[in-house]
């Protein structure tokens, strides 16, 4: 079955180039969008399996678009294709529901491979991304006691994330830890899911507090 993709990027050269690369390699680009508003409007109409999202969308933010798309289309996966300089934005995008991150300098093959893995529900983790996620868990762990439970990594999850951040492939990690690369991937997936759940519960808590304060 052909994987359907929507490309969101504010730059026309890039947008068309990526769409053509994907099309030439057997993927179906069902829509393109230049900004967050258009992305959120168009996505429900075309229901793509994967949204390929740039974070720096001119005046609008890709993070907002991700939250909107994940909210209305739970089966759609978001893959961030971004500049390497936007670390804080990438972390926010992950917490908002993106399941992978690829730098724009990646080759066309890497891109197609990442889109296909995203469609299958396998998170696309670069070493840089693992570093960001590790750092975020450490930051959460250092917050003062008394706050509602923050997500924590198991020892094995920490071990796996650190090895990803140090540049080992899933296969290499599997060999080191004597587990299958599937197991490695599911550990990675768990670290991301816990972070997204925490983010959602925080948003709900915030909304409730605001609602109560208004009464």
């Amino acid at each position: 079955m052909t994987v359907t993709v929507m490309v969101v990027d504010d730059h026309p050269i890039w947008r068309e180039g990526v769409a053509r690369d994907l099309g030439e390699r057997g993927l179906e680009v069902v829509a393109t969008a230049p900004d967050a508003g258009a992305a959120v409007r168009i996505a429900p109409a075309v229901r793509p399996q994967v949204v390929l999202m740039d974070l720096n969308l001119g005046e609008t933010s890709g993070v907002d678009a991700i939250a909107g798309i994940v909210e209305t289309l739970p089966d759609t996966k978001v893959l961030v294709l971004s500049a390497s300089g936007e670390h804080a934005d990438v972390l926010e995008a992950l917490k908002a529901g993106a399941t992978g991150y690829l730098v724009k300098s990646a080759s066309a093959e890497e891109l197609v491979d990442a889109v296909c893995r995203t469609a299958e529900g396998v998170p696309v983790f670069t070493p840089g991304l693992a570093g960001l996620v590790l750092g975020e868990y450490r930051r959460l762990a250092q917050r003062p006691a008394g706050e509602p439970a923050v997500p924590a990594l198991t020892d094995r999850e920490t071990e796996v994330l650190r090895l990803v951040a140090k540049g080992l492939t899933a296969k290499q990690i599997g060999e080191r830890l004597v587990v299958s690369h599937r197991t490695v991937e599911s550990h990675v997936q768990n670290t991301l899911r816990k972070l997204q759940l925490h983010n959602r519960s925080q948003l709900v808590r915030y909304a409730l507090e605001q609602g109560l304060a208004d009464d």
Partner: protein
Amino acid sequence: MFRPAPVPATLIDVERPLEPLWRGVVVYRVLTLVTVIGVSAFHMSDYASPLGAGLVLAVMTVWTAVLARGWLVGADERRGPLALADLAVSAGIMLTTPLIVTDAQLDASAPGMGSIWTSGAVLACAVAYRIPGGVVAAAVISAALVLAKSRATLTELNDIQILVLAGLTVGYASSVLRRAAERVRRAVAEEAAAAERERLARAVHDGVLQVLAHVGRRGAELGGAAAELGTLAGEQEVALRTLLTSGNAQVDAEGRRDLAATLRALASGRVTVSAPAHPIDLPAATVGELDAVVRAALANVERHVGADAPAWVLVEELDGAIEISVRDDGPGIPAGRLAEAEEQGRLGVARSMRGRVEELGGTLGLDTGPGRGTEWTIRIPARAEKCRESV
């Protein structure tokens, strides 16, 4: 991206923070001149030389006008010398006292020539030269006072005390104002630099970076000579992005620097740097040393594994420690090679890296073996380096 707190609409003029003090000195000088002329008029008939008194008062009036011009509209760099000239003139006026005021008048507590007007010189020196200037000027005027009246009764001691106090207070105010202005100036400059960088980043993102990234990808697909061009374009893209975001790696006002941003600047086509999204602020000297150690480890990868060999840097903030790992996928260092090199007196990379890390109270670990690559682990304690809370 780092943004300094917005600066409130100028409470002080950053370029000329001392203006309010200079205006105050002028007001003080004019008021005291009027007072002194009044008091002298009252004593005029008893003076040994009423003509001399009139002459001295005239000089004081002219000098006050000269000072008013200098303090209000004069160039900043001429104010220091003018304050010193003021000190000399004021002391001189005071020293004319024995020629004009009689001993009987002084015994009856009549003031010397200039009296309270001369203390304006102490204020001017304090504004221009801060506390040292205020104290020295107070000493000069006090000496002139005692010399001119050739006595040091309770009245004179009281005057001296007030002169010194005025010198200290105004000198302190002058240095506080200068420091505040310097802070505001720096904050404004940082804000402007951050805004400019952001503006540039937006412009470059919309154009140059997109094209470079595109060239990089198409080049790789076309292969051959185009691939080489593509690689070059890709390297420039990374370098340009790093340049635009490296503002975070600068030393802040407290002498601290973000380790994460500093090490990210080492990223290139072959080097991947992974770090938390939030800053890891450490003393700038520590960050400089760690940067040097990581560079040495990366240079070592280049030398022993190959110029194109990929390397990975991971920075982590653990409980009370900073850990940096530098890893490659090369053949590994055979057992005993390092020890052998050290024995032969070749200092080698390990020795200098270890020295630097131990200076920081840390440890350097090495994990290597055939087929396993090489991983250096730098671990330093981060005393009281609490993670900055940011939401």
